[in-house]
């Protein structure tokens, strides 16, 4: 038996060779570059923390950070709100809604489509003069003049948020729905017998029991949201127009590295993004756990 255990190494060897080469090494190589002025050709110099110092005062990066959070925040609020509402309706014992599988498939559909196709599609649907959205709104009479969605900072950011919601609410709905189905019926029955109304059932039974699931959705959505890149790149000019309102952190990273060849600085941007992700995830975790303790004390 002991002799056979050496086979363990053989089975995990291919994984580790590739993992070290293509995952671990690049992460450390990027860390090294973040301390240099590397521009893509050999002969870089070590510049210490200069890139990080620049990052802290770089208005474009700070702007990109604020934009990313804004776009993600609006999207997340809408997405999770919609997902919770739908899950509640479908799990309501008194409503007995039918067609869950049908609706669920349609709600999830936008999530499967290649994001560059989504960006391209909405780019022309939202077009100022010839876009279908303006044409429909004009026909119905909601607006009297076409709206130039993608050329004003506020509507451009809102458009991206709404497209993200459109893409992701079905995904969140499936997860929340699975969570709700996992809650024992006894809880709802007991609450019903105790005379709880719908809202009380939601706030005192469903929501606390869904907390781990909501935490999961929030963390994963946050990590994905902070990496927002494809939509802003393809919806407008690729560097964040109008007025830099669609400049996100990963778009900035991409442009710095592969457009302007500032690899050293872009590496620092990558680590800045990583630290921000870590801090935000930690805050979300802590916030959730503190609330839990508070409710336990309260009960």
């Amino acid at each position: 038996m002991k002799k056979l255990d050496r086979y363990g190494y053989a089975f995990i060897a291919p994984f580790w060779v590739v993992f070290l080469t293509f995952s671990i090494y690049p992460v450390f190589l990027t860390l090294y570059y973040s301390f240099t002025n590397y521009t893509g050709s050999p002969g870089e110099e070590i510049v210490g923390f200069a890139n990080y110092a620049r990052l802290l005062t770089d208005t474009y990066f700070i702007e990109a950070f604020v934009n990313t959070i804004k776009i993600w925040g609006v999207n997340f609020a809408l997405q999770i709100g919609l997902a919770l509402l739908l899950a509640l309706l479908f799990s309501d014992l008194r409503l007995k809604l039918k067609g869950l599988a049908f609706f669920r498939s349609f709600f999830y559909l936008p999530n499967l489509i290649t994001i560059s196709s989504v960006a391209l599609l909405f780019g022309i649907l939202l077009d100022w003069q010839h876009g279908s959205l303006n044409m429909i709104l004009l026909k119905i009479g909601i607006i009297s003049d076409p709206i130039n969605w993608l050329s004003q900072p506020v509507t451009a950011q809102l458009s991206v948020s709404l497209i993200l919601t459109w893409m992701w609410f079905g995904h969140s709905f499936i997860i929340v729905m699975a969570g709700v189905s996992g809650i024992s019926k006894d809880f709802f029955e007991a609450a019903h017998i105790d005379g709880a109304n719908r809202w009380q059932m939601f706030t005192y039974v469903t929501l606390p029991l869904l907390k781990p699931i909501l935490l999961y959705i929030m963390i994963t959505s946050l990590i994905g949201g902070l990496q927002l890149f494809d939509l802003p790149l393809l919806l407008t000019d690729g560097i964040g127009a109008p007025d830099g309102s669609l400049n996100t952190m990963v778009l900035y990273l991409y442009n710095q590295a592969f457009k302007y060849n500032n690899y050293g600085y872009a590496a620092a941007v990558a680590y800045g993004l990583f630290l921000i992700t870590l801090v935000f995830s930690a805050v979300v975790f802590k916030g959730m756990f503190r609330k839990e303790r508070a409710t336990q004390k309260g009960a």
Partner: protein
Amino acid sequence: MEQNAETRRMLADSEVQPLREEKPLRLEPPKPKQKKKIFSRGVIYTGLIVLTIICFIPFLMMLVNATRTNGEIMSGFSLLPGTALLDNYAILSDYINIWTGFKNSLIIAVLVTLLSGYFSAMTAFGFAFYDFKGKNAMFIFMLVMMMVPGQLGLIGFYEISKTLGILDSFIPLIIPSIASPFVVFFIRQYTQATLHVSMIEAARIDGASELRIFHTIALPMMMPAVATMSIFTFIGSWNNYLMPLVLLFSPEKYTLPVLMGFLKGSQVAENLGALYLGIAISVVPIMIAFLFMSKYIVSSISAGAVKE
């Protein structure tokens, strides 16, 4: 993006659980409320149908506009198909060969899915059934690295691809999938619950080699977990945009998403009908696949997230 999809499920649990179907409780409401209930159900169904339409109408407009001429699209909105489908296709194929992009995406996604499934199962097998020095440390290290977003190593990844001379090839898009920490983690958790050591030992007594045991006993039993992860691996690779955008330079090697981005800046973009058709060709196969797979996809998402 693939890494991204993995972190999305990082808090996941082991079991591949089918969705539990709702069985409504029989709580008879008092009679006078019956009318109100029917009314509120009507409102809810209307809302759901509106939401369904919102989810689907961009695709519908895409399909309709793909069959209309540039002039027709510019002059107004319609849900009736036109007759310019073939003309649009001719314009589109004058500029790009969309089927090449299709083929490239398919080759990469299939190989990524196969490699990731096979080697993750192998790694999970090694971690689950052998006791060797540093096993736990390695496993924990793998889990920690799983949390690191893909963009962190992007520049280093580009540089090492450059050093190895594999830029502008499919290799850096395919080979790294051999190491998919989340898939390893998922399969290992599944395996520990379903595959017992005694089965391995019985095969050993029968004289099977270790590799043969893996291929004939472990791998078939891991298949449900491998299949669950394969759906996501495939979709993740198919939709991956950033990596091929950075790594590929020759238009004939572009994957479908990169080709779509390329369309935007090309002359095709001046003919909206052709542009819509290009998008439609990239979207429709996924929609058809989804028609057949939606049940599995839904239960896979749930399995990835829900702890029972």
